[in-house]
């Protein structure tokens, strides 16, 4: 029996979450004394994975899998999971991984837990802690499949280096490609950091008074290499696109640092960003609920504080 990890990549480069799920897999393999297999699909440099302790790397390279399609990615991951006689499959909680996880779980007749935040509390039965009620609570879920799938929440475990000398197997796929769903085009904003992958997220709310003031958010984000986000009213009013809306009905955020500017902190917003490690709020209203949820706060006018913060951070980065 072994544990298999799917290391996600984008345009040939591993996502940070790939190293995190592999680190998680190493810890779980040690705990359960199983071997650790990692699978990559069209990654340029699969050897990079050896920094995080796998016993075996399966590197699939196939032009048929150039674009991500959920059904085909699920099919190949299921196929190799069967070949490797696995007991646990580990995925990230990215949009793509959460897309394929339920498909694989039906194919493998496996138990599934998404948004898992720590290493299993017990192995037999398999008990994992996961976030629920949009980060307002946690639950311990018992997984009772013969095979079980764990989707690890971003930034919950961390990346832990653990170099190994794995066996590497290069393969191309044998199975038929499913084309019932055809991907016609992918539109991506270039040069910006996406909320899901970002270590730092800078978010703006109604306090910024209008879309014309968004350069404050963008400038601060660019100094920090951060993604930009916004609160629900801001996206509802059309100041910013929906894809930037974070909160209960928007995107979840699990960054290391979350900076909220002019966001009052409605319960739905706080729920969506609660898994971020460190939260900073800048707001001129000392009664804003965000101050109860934040680690650091400045009570002050965003239009005065943010430009100063940008200047000071630029100076700090030069040092």
């Amino acid at each position, binding site marked *: 029996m072994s544990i298999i990890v799917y290391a996600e990549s984008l345009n040939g480069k591993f996502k940070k979450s790939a190293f995190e799920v592999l680190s998680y897999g190493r810890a779980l393999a040690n705990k359960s004394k199983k071997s650790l297999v990692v699978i990559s699909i069209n990654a340029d440099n699969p050897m990079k994975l050896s920094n995080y302790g796998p016993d075996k790397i399966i590197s699939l390279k196939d032009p048929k899998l150039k674009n991500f399609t959920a059904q085909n990615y699920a099919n190949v991951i299921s196929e190799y999971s069967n070949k490797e006689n696995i007991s646990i499959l580990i995925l990230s909680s*990215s*949009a793509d991984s*959460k*897309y394929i*996880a*339920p*498909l694989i*779980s*039906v194919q493998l007749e496996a*138990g*599934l*837990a*998404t*948004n898992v935040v720590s290493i299993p509390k017990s192995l037999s039965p398999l*008990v994992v*802690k996961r976030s*629920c009620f*949009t980060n307002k609570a*946690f*639950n*311990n*879920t*018992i*997984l*009772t*499949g013969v095979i079980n799938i764990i989707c690890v929440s971003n930034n919950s475990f961390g990346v832990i280096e653990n170099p190994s000398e794995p066996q590497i197997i290069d393969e191309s796929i044998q199975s038929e490609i499913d084309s*019932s*769903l*055809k*991907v*016609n085009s992918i539109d*991506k*904003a270039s040069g*910006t*950091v996406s*909320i*899901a992958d970002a*270590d730092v997220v800078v978010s703006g709310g109604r306090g910024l008074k209008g879309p014309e003031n968004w350069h404050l958010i963008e400038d601060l984000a660019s100094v*920090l290499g951060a993604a930009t986000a916004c609160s*629900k009213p801001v996206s*509802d009013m059309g100041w910013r696109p929906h*894809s930037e809306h974070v909160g*209960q*009905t*928007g995107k979840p955020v699990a960054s290391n*640092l979350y900076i909220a500017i002019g966001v009052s902190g409605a*319960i739905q917003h706080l729920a969506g960003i609660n898994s971020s490690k460190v939260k900073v*709020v800048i707001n001129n209203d000392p009664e804003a609920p965000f101050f*109860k949820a*934040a*680690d*650091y*706060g*400045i*009570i002050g006018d965003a239009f005065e*504080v943010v430009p*100063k*913060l940008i200047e000071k*951070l630029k100076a*700090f980065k030069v040092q």
Partner: protein
Amino acid sequence: MYYNKISFLNIIKIYLKSHIIDSNKNLKSNIKFEFNIVNLNKNLRMNILVCISNVPDTTSKINFTEDHKAFDINGIQFIINPNDEFGLTRAIWFQQKNQATVTVVTVGDSSCEPILRKCLAIGANKAIRIDTSAKDGFYVATQLKSLCEKEKYDIIICGRESIDYNGGMVPGMLAQMLKLPFVTNCISMEVIENVVNVKREIDGGIESSSSSLPIIIGAQKGLVEESDLIIPNMRGIMQARQKPLDVIAPVSSSAKSSVEQFQKPQEKESVKLVAPENIDELISLLHNEAKVI
């Protein structure tokens, strides 16, 4: 040619509809004409299923029973899962424009019926309740699969995830069980004849794809806007009482997971305030104490 004729007639129909509202003159003949067009469109009618989850209101304070084994429903208002409601609204648009039939379904006990009645008041044609408690995502998907095998649906809409369990499991599992194309995080869906064009929100962008019907989608905000959500009016509420709400027995299935215990997050330490003129201190705290920059 046939389709062209129909879309042409559709345009006339939309015009006539507005005309009926504008003036009551010639009402009888307009209605008769409209009736004929509806008949012509009959063979294009889609059958849409929207899967609904009963969840605590988004502003709810989350508490658990003393043994931490269950969610404490005391004083909690239940609503249609927001992601499901975006999907329901999109389905109602298909109903209004293309005469689609919209069925809503939930897996749950009789306490879920008020939200099904609300779906009917919003405009769904009929409701089904599968009479069992939702044990886990796999169990719910199995129940829905059984329904979808009996009835033929062209579009099956689920919310991308519920806001209580946040599993995001049911739509994908159902798609794999039925071997149907599946798009989650769906922000746009248009049907032209038998082809469905969908857009999915991906990390940092949008992916467009197409397939033939039937299809399963995981709905989210963007499929319709928050301001598009339909608030039931008195007429809708009255009509909902007359619409069918069928209760059907579950099929036998076992769950693959169960919740052992719930926990609330640890109480946070109170915020460290920094004076606005003291930005250097904030940078130093983030660098030296929090170690995030």
